[in-house]
């Protein structure tokens, strides 16, 4: 018996592997977008796919996001499974008309006769020193659009498992890739990449008893770091990685908050009208009698994404998370 040693791999590599495996498993899977061919995408996530599967399966499209998604709709109508790459979060906006008016609605419009199995990969979030239009967290827009699934991985293994699940889904999935984590490494065995994760399940990344940090994507490692730092203050924080914003895993989240009695939602997206408001409301509706303090939010400020030289002030960091934890009315405890 041979044991394959776990090797460090990056999230970007796991995503590439997921695309490759999906394309090999199903000839209906087509990758399309800007610079996804010879270049392998600006983040190299589609590296080698055009070479291996040909340009008809991994296609450099004309530079037009609405056209990319709009033609993907037609391809899906004919039975293909397009995987669309949006080059950056803020450059997905031209495609919103197609996304909202057609991608999200076609199944419902046709009473199930015309599902659209399209995966829309969107690198998102800040912390990479990107100049304007390269660091948006646009998940609230996607979450507010019924008919879309919205998924975001925080670990290398989830990047693989969730992307495979997204491509296998018969519904459209907005797959948000935290670009800050593209180069993060984890022990991961590409020969045994792990389970295809069902979409819609959150996971407890770190068990704890004092309070729950509810988070996703790029903020998961920040919350884990905060949880480590909190030990010095005597707090044992639980970290829930949502993985899927739509559908939302109320059960896992509520079970955690009922155990800990306190919750902070953490994300980069702005707080006002952001995912945290929805999550806080859901937690309160389900856990009111267990809560020792109001559910707090640590979010990006309600400002257009700042210039990179100032982004560290904007992004939720360990200190801001610990400040929020401190405000969870511990005095009532003693």
């Amino acid at each position, binding site marked *: 018996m041979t044991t394959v040693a776990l090797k460090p791999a990056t999230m970007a590599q796991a995503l590439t592997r997921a695309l490759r495996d999906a394309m090999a498993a199903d000839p209906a899977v087509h990758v399309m977008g800007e610079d996804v061919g010879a270049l392998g995408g600006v983040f190299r996530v589609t590296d080698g796919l055009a070479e291996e599967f040909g340009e008809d399966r991994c296609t450099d499209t004309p530079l037009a996001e*609405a056209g990319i998604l*709009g033609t*993907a709709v*037609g391809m899906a*109508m004919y*039975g293909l499974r397009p995987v669309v790459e949006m080059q950056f979060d803020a450059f997905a906006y031209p495609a919103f*008309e197609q996304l909202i008016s057609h991608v999200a609605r076609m199944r419902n419009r*046709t009473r199930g006769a*015309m599902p659209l199995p399209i995966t829309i990969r969107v690198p998102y979030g800040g912390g990479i020193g990107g100049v304007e239009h390269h660091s948006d967290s646009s998940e609230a827009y996607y979450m507010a659009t019924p008919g879309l699934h919205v998924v975001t991985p925080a670990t290398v293994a989830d990047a693989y498992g969730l992307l495979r699940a997204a491509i296998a889904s018969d519904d459209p999935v907005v797959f948000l890739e935290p670009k800050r984590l593209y180069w993060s490494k984890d022990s991961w065995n590409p020969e045994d990449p792990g389970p295809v994760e069902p979409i819609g399940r959150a996971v407890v990344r770190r068990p704890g008893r004092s309070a729950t940090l509810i988070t996703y994507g790029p903020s998961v490692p920040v919350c884990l770091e905060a949880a480590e730092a909190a030990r010095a203050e005597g707090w044992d924080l639980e970290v829930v990685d949502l993985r899927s914003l739509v559908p939302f895993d109320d059960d896992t989240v509520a079970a955690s908050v009922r155990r800990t009695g306190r919750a902070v939602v953490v994300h980069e997206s702005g707080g006002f009208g952001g995912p945290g408001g929805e999550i806080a409301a859901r937690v309160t509706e389900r856990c009111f009698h267990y809560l020792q303090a109001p559910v707090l939010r640590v979010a990006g400020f309600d400002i257009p994404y700042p210039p990179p030289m100032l982004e560290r002030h904007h992004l939720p960091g360990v200190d801001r998370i610990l400040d929020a934890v401190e405000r969870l009315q511990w005095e009532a405890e003693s």
Partner: protein
Amino acid sequence: MTVMEQRGAYRPTPPPAWQPRTDPAPLLPDSRPYRVLGTETAAQADPTLLRRLYAELVRGRRYNAQATALTKQGRLAVYPSSTGQEACEVAAALVLEERDWLFPSYRDTLAAVARGLDPVQALTLLRGDWHTGYDPHEHRVAPLCTPLATQLPHAVGLAHAARLKGDDVVALALVGDGGTSEGDFHEALNFAAVWQAPVVFLVQNNGFAISVPLAKQTAAPSLAHKAVGYGMPGRLVDGNDAAAVHEVLGDAVAHARAGGGPTLVEAVTYRIDAHTNADDATRYRGDAEVETWRAHDPIALLEHELTERGLLDEDGIQAARDAAEAMAADLRERMNQDPELDPMDLFAHVYAEPTPQLREQQDRLRAELEAGAEADADADAEGTGR
């Protein structure tokens, strides 16, 4: 090294060789809309086809009238009539093979019906029933599309996918003159040409986008000229001449099927009715203009041609009218029955599987409806008790 540093050694060189990417000349549309009826070419048109077109135009006119009447009776929420545009609607349907796909807009229910769709199913959206009253795969008719021009990239993608799969399927997409100003029109034509997708774009230039005339929409020589910028042929045709539209679209479909890529066809026609039943066209156009177009009516044009050539007599005309009347009577009768909608369907098709959140909401609505039904039953019981 800068020019200064080369001290006189620099020689200006011509730019690297440049050539036009395509010869624009064959892509240019005719200088005036192509016509068949009333010209010498008409003699070559297939009599069987002309008779078929005639019967469909008569049926189409009657369908438009019936649907308009149904709005007045409150049976349709809204109806965008294609009266005056029947030649385009019918020809678009007839040039396609069964395996081909039609991509209609809200104004094109007639094209869908001419392709074989049940008129009641075609009108489901417009009566306020479910958004699409038919399975698009059944007649290969995409859902009626309301956001302008957004159906065009779908047609391109579908045609492209078919070609990748090795199927000789053509997609024909319909759009209005106003829709050509939308970004999706541009992106769709560009993708189609780059991919050489087997797709035909039919622009029905009916003079108006609701109230706005074409002059405020574009400064292009014609809408057909726009094709040249994308590297595809543009064709200009008299949209009220059913034989001409059929020929031009037929050629474009054959060209696409043979691997020749997309074509943009502009059919010059006129919207005889208001934009919809809710519109008041007197606010933006005069009767005189409408009358000049009524004089160039698609049915009259074809009827004249057929009767002149002895291909149609009074009996033939009556037969076409009778068939149209029968269709209208059946449509009227079936549209006068109230459709049954199940409120639970609101949640059934948002996703393949309803999310837990949607299940909760579905349960809540079900409980509301049951409580409502109980309350009604109690009220009834009280009413009879008294």
